[in-house]
């Protein structure tokens, strides 16, 4: 009896040992056999790990006081898990009110009816960007159908089995069209392919997007892997002030309508640091429904005229000519020029705007009366080489590199440009005098504002920019202003500012604002056609800044083809006045007298 028991135990022990031994041998084989390594790797790929594509949420855009201009909102993607779909017709009928495009409806019909085949497609994306409210309704409908037809077993009854939804983020612009030309477009409907176009969305696309990551995550729950905390794309704080931007856009729209103009552009800049406080132009689009403007966006009209459309600026260019002459010591504010009303140079005949001669004029009076003849003479005193050297130093013909997508420029024609195959790029000696008062030279409004800001800011020209700070990894990095150059001396800048302030005061310009001493210059530019300056249409401009002893703002105004009056002094100067009246309140700038008293008080 005992022998039999023991022999059985022996058999069990030997069998177990054999099994264990075989298992050991097999384990050793797994370790050393290359084919098993391959199988193991394949099994890992197929069953142990799941590929995960982590896409960060696009960063927010704020105005200078932290008010959200562009953010993200939660919506849903509705799809079908084909394996579980029982009644595709119900899915199509339920979703059809959400689909306006007949092509998309056809796609949804086809996708929902796709037959499930193991190992092939398992999920079909049906509709994107469905609002949470609609999802709530869909949820109720699905639940009711499930109660009536459990698991969709009865094909004659409706069932939404297999229809699922997943959250997704959609770009959202709470201010609609406010600052649209600065912010730019993010075509969120393009899903993974989407990237910013124009403005901030384009220029800082990489920063806003952040870095997406592809991870291999274990499916097996006890294989815990550290998932990196996925940061959102960097958020941006702009230099733009929402209140001022809104005021500026409202004012621009009113004035373009009142003057029956083709369009308009106004820039408000802080000349001390190059910050763009507001920038308004037309047309503007509601960024939330960017897809409605497809045709307009394809047209030749630039998305942001302030940085992309060049034009001949006219007399607002004269301060640059005068700055060069004063800086070189060729003239002083009191230098007398005897204006005969006509000036001939290298085949070009120059007249004043009213074809009158003004007789003896100081340089300040030349600016006050905006005399083309006088400025032509000044340019010849400077000489071509120095004149263009100064224009280049002011950044004319070169992009300002403002941090907005879509900036454009027109090359400055200098005495070196004489052999270009396209004659429109060639320079002729007569250009020296016509360029002196802003003809035959093309600039964008941002180029002009930047160049003139050097005069406002004691000779120092700051780089225009709209980015104030970057928020990345929950830390705020403030952006330091950059100096673009110092085209003129501090003394020249102060002298010219005083000349322009005096000329406005003597002219009793409609740009003047009681209580504030400001400097400025009007501009009226004829619009060239292939036949020359034959059109009656003009560009009316004004550039001004203040308070001149401590400039906080520089305003550049361009009203395109006004029909109420062709003159900058009539069209653009009053706009400057109106804007400054509002602006000083929004920027908390007291009248000069009060400001000086307050400064004394401490």
């Amino acid at each position, binding site marked *: 009896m*005992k022998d039999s028991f023991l022999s059985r135990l022996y058999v069990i022990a030997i069998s*177990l040992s054999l099994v264990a031994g075989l298992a050991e041998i097999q384990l050793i084989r797994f370790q050393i056999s290359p084919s098993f390594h391959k199988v193991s790797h394949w099994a890992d790929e197929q069953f142990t790990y799941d590929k995960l594509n982590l896409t960060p949420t696009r960063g927010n855009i704020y105005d200078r006081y932290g008010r959200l201009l562009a953010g993200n909102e*939660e919506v849903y993607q509705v799809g079908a898990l084909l394996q579980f779909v029982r009644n595709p017709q119900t899915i199509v009928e339920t979703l059809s009110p959400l689909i306006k495009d007949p092509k998309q409806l056809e796609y949804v019909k086809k996708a929902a009816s796709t037959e499930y085949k193991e190992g092939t497609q398992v999920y079909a994306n049906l509709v994107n960007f469905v609002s949470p409210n609609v999802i709530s309704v869909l949820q109720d409908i699905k639940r009711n159908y499930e109660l009536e037809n459990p698991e969709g077993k009865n094909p004659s009854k409706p069932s939404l089995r297999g229809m699922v939804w997943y959250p997704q983020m959609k770009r959202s612009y709470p201010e609609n069209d406010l600052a649209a030309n600065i912010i730019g477009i993010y075509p969120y409907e393009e899903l993974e392919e989407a990237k910013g176009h124009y403005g901030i969305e384009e220029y800082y696309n990489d920063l806003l997007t952040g870095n997406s990551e592809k991870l291999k995550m274990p499916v097996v729950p006890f294989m*815990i892997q550290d*998932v990196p905390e996925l940061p959102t794309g960097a958020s941006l704080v702009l230099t733009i002030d929402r209140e001022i931007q809104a005021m500026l856009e409202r004012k621009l729209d009113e004035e373009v309508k009142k003057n029956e103009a083709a369009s308009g552009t106004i820039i408000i800049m802080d000349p001390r640091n190059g910050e763009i406080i507001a920038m308004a132009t037309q047309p503007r689009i509601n960024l939330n429904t960017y897809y409605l403007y497809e045709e307009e966006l394809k047209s030749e009209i630039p998305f942001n005229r302030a940085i992309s459309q060049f034009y001949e600026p006219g007399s607002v260019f004269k301060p640059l000519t005068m700055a060069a002459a004063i800086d070189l010591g060729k003239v002083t504010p009191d230098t007398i020029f005897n204006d005969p009303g006509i000036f001939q140079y290298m085949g070009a005949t120059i007249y004043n705007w009213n074809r009158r001669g003004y007789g003896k004029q100081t340089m300040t009076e030349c600016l006050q009366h905006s005399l083309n003849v006088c400025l032509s003479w000044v340019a010849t005193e400077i000489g071509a080489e120095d004149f263009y050297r100064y224009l280049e130093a002011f950044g004319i013909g070169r992009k300002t590199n403002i941090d907005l997508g879509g900036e454009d420029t027109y090359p400055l024609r200098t005495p070196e440009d004489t052999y270009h195959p396209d004659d429109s790029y060639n320079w002729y000696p007569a250009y020296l005098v016509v360029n002196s008062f802003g003809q035959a030279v093309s600039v964008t409004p941002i180029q002009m504002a930047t160049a003139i800001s050097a005069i406002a800011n004691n000779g120092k020209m700051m780089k225009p920019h709209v980015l104030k700070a970057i928020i990345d990894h929950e830390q705020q990095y403030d952006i330091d202003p950059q100096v673009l150059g110092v085209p003129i001396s501090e003394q020249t800048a102060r002298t010219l500012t005083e000349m322009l302030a005096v000329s406005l005061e003597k002219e009793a310009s409609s740009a003047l604002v009681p209580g504030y001493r400001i400097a400025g210059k009007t501009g009226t530019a004829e619009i060239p056609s292939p036949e020359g300056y034959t059109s009656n249409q003009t560009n009316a401009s004004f550039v001004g800044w203040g308070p001149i002893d401590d400039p906080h703002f520089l305003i550049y105004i361009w009203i395109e083809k006004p029909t109420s009056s062709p003159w900058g002094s009539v069209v653009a100067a009053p706009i400057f006045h109106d804007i400054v009246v509002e602006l000083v309140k929004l920027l908390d700038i007291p009248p000069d007298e009060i400001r000086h008293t307050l400064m004394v008080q401490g």
Partner: protein
Amino acid sequence: MGLFKKKKTPIDTLKQAYQQTPWRAQLQSIAHILLPLITLGIMSLLYLNISAQAATAGMQIRNLQRKEEEISRQIANLRTQLAWNTSYSNMHKRAAALGYGYPDSGTLIYIVVPGYQGRKTAIIAPPPSLNVVTSSRYNPKFQESLWDKLFDNLLIKNDRGS
């Protein structure tokens, strides 16, 4: 030595009397074989237990990750909703409805407020700090193998004890 060959004594015969019975000796040898197997079984049970605990923790972590993603989306959503509610046009309408408006320049009074530096621009996040610590979000014990655990807890502790 060979000259003095020892004769068998009665004690030697007695020794024979104390030998194990054959079935006991067999049982002993079987036990020798089974002991490692039982040890292996206990270790497997231990391993299974720890794996089960790790799996539970893993599931909890995944749930928390999903929750975190959900909360992040909710935060982004609420921030945007707040911005819609406080947009310029909405605030303008609400202010107008409450009888507020922009003041006329003539009615403005400026006063000196000691210490007031003017309106400050947005500070949405703290400035960059040099003390940035980047570390794993999980307790390293979650990724510890059974061997690591035994090695750390038993061997190292014993070393310290001695």
